[in-house]
């Protein structure tokens, strides 16, 4: 199978700090890839390199290849078109202080879509795709800030879907949510991977085990182990992985 992302020998420095060390990973399409590891291990930094969210940070030096469908995202793509194809969902739901409709229509409008009919269609499809349409269809003009945390997070997923991406990056998308909202996002990921590729940072081992197809374990900026999730959680190859996932690290 052709990789969606092919990352090879990726090194990232924040000034003197070597945050990613020779990271090489193939992320396969229509899969959920989980990135796990202790705080500060580089997993979120790695996630951000996939849609160039690190570009504007001061002192960041990136070396190596990050290919999206064979094209180098740093040398052959501009950041805006890259981010249309690679959406991002953050730990804290961050809807704009606007209506539910405007939150989702914002990106397509920036892309120049003006037709009300077209925008309505995009908004409905995105909200349906994020499994929140039935809950908000009668209150689209109401403020997004009135939604619950779980609904806000699904709205943020809808906002990302409205840009028409291939890939969704998720940085601990459920860590601020209650168990029911968490289950809804997890179920959603399983649905979304039919149409998208998902890369998710999570601190929740059970979440990685439940929903991901592959898992990468990061430690001190290195990928220690990257394998089939069932394999990793039943018989990891590296002792450091074993110690981390069984909670006996350090």
């Amino acid at each position, binding site marked *: 199978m052709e990789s969606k992302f092919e990352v090879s020998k990726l090194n990232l420095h924040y000034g003197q700090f070597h945050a990613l060390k020779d990271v090489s990973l193939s992320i396969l399409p229509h899969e959920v890839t989980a990135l796990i590891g202790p705080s500060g291990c580089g997993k979120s930094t790695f996630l951000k390199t996939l849609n160039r969210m690190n570009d504007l940070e001061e002192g960041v030096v990136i070396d190596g290849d990050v290919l999206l469908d064979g094209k180098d995202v740093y040398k052959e793509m501009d950041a805006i078109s890259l981010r249309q194809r690679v959406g991002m969902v953050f730990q804290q739901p961050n809807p704009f202080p606007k209506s539910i409709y405007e939150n989702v229509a914002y990106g397509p409008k920036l892309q120049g879509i003006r037709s009300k009919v077209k925008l309505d269609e995009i908004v409905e499809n995105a909200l349906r795709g994020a499994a929140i349409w039935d809950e908000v269809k009668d209150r689209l003009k109401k403020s997004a800030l009135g939604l619950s945390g779980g609904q806000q997070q699904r709205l943020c997923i809808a906002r990302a879907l409205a840009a028409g991406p291939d890939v969704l990056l998720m940085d601990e998308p459920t860590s601020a949510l209650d168990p029911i909202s968490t289950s809804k996002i997890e179920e959603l990921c399983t649905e979304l991977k039919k149409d998208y590729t998902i890369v998710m940072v999570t601190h929740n081992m059970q979440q990685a085990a439940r929903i991901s197809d592959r898992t990468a374990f990061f430690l001190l900026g290195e990928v220690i182990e990257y394998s*089939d999730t*069932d*394999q990793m959680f*039943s018989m990891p190859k590296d002792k450091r992985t074993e110690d981390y*996932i*069984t909670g006996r690290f*350090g």
Partner: protein
Amino acid sequence: MTRTRFDEQLEELHVELIKMGSLCEEAISLSARALEEEDKEIEKRVFHLETEIDEMERTIETLCMRLLLHQQPVARDLRTISAALKMISDMERIGDQAADIVELVPYIAKSETKSKSHIKDMAKETVSMVTDSVEAFVKKNLDLAAKVIKKDDIVDEMFAQIKQELMELVRSQDVDAEPALDLLMAAKYFERIGDHAVNVAEWVEYSVTGIHNSNEHHLGK
């Protein structure tokens, strides 16, 4: 980062398994002795042990379920607990078979054949198989597990030999068919106990390596 409470609970699981294992050893040793001595007290003790083994199975099962619920184990912890859950079924069967042997005592106690002493040898081998398989689990000792698996061939060979001897005795009309069949059944129970010890040893291998002999329990691709 440590998991002291979890490690204590895993240690408790090991202790309970050792206890269950030693009850099995005692049950098999006594059932072999009962074949020689026809002592009602020994028979009673074996039946009592069988009940105790059944209770231990339930206790360990509850402990494992609690560990799965509270600790959500992965990797070696998950393998240890799932192996323990499988092993106790085999150990429970060992207890049942020891009691089955004792039930045959009134029918074969008076028979004096060389097969009876061969059954004693079989019992000795199976006791050591059960002891070693439990010890292999607790110590995560693959060599010991392999030794148990290998020893099964010796026990199978002994069973085949006893069967042959009994066939010859029946053919030559040196013994009646009924006690001969009862002896054969006792030998078969010991042979089955050996098989259960092998199952335990195979789960030990799984808990250490993640690969079970049958390959059906291998989660990774």
